[in-house]
């Protein structure tokens, strides 16, 4: 690196026993550089003890999400030039999740809530039954098809103010997953899903602020999925009473 090389002013969150603080690094600027490139450069050239998480580097695995200049982003697909603010980049661990070390968060609460939302497949047939025929043009399948593009990156969870103010809230991703299964003709647990998302901290804790839809890197709309769950739980509220 020569002295004329342009550098980026990067602040990276470093955790310690008392919480943590930002540490400043000067990172050489490069063309088509991503935030993950910046983090990797620091770890490889400045401080090998920097902890962060990544896997695929192409926006498929959902591992590398971090807070970049205050917003949750998938760092492998986030170009420095799109998010840099006055040559400064601030990189922090994802909001709303416990930090393991530096930029690596503990994803357990996020995935535990998928289970709590019944975001798991509920088989309805045995291996001896014929495979369910799926109409790809049906309304239910169309709804499910949109939601299943989720890569579990937890960016929506980090962006959600309802999660921040209510730690029991299941969050956008888990409820989006529940909505895809509710609309899956092969899933046999529709009422189980509705019961799960109707419990305290379920879909009714969403205030429809839309941060999830704005932040989702795959341009999904968990808020719309949650609205669907609200509609279905409201319908079930009346129909179950009659029964």
């Amino acid at each position: 690196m020569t002295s004329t090389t342009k550098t980026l002013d990067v602040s990276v969150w470093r955790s310690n026993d008392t919480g943590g603080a930002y540490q400043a690094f000067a990172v050489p600027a490069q063309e088509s550089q991503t935030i993950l490139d910046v983090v990797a450069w620091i770890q490889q050239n400045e401080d090998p003890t920097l902890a962060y998480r990544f896997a695929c580097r192409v926006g498929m695995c959902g591992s590398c999400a971090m807070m970049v200049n205050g917003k949750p982003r998938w760092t492998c697909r986030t170009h420095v030039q799109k998010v840099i603010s006055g040559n400064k980049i601030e990189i922090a661990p994802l909001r709303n999740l416990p930090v393991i070390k530096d930029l690596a968060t503990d994803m357990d609460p996020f995935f535990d809530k998928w289970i709590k939302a019944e975001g798991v497949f509920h088989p309805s047939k045995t291996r001896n039954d014929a495979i369910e025929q799926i109409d790809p043009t049906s309304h239910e399948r169309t709804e499910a098809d949109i939601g299943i593009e989720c890569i579990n990156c937890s960016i929506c969870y980090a962006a959600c103010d309802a999660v921040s103010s209510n730690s029991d809230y299941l969050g956008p991703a888990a409820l989006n997953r529940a909505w895809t299964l509710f609309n899956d003709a092969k899933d046999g647990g529709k009422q189980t899903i509705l019961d799960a998302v109707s419990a305290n901290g379920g879909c009714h804790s969403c205030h429809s602020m839309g941060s999830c839809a704005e932040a989702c890197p795959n341009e999904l709309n968990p808020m719309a999925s949650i609205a669907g769950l609200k509609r279905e739980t409201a319908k079930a509220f009346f129909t179950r009473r009659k029964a």
Partner: protein
Amino acid sequence: MTDLRLYMAQRISAFVMAPLVLGHIAVMIYAIQGGLSAGEILGRTQGSFGWALFYGTFVVAVSVHAAIGLRTIAFEVVGLKGSALNVFAWAVFLVLFAMGAQAVYAVTAL
């Protein structure tokens, strides 16, 4: 009470309030444009079962709706939890209901 029941109570109370609010605004505009005095208004409302029902329903819906809304704010912003949260919500409901019922009684009772 579960989130679903609170959610439904708040939506149903909003559904009830919407036409009553429009009716209330229409009555206010009518009363002002026609230049009705307080005495003339009371002459129409006192002893009227219809007006007692109209504003009585409104008071119940407002009390339910506002108590649930403030309960959510108290939980998410102030951090109230458990029985303290429910006591707070019931207190809001009772205060609003008492004040509203007193007002309805004052203008509709003979």
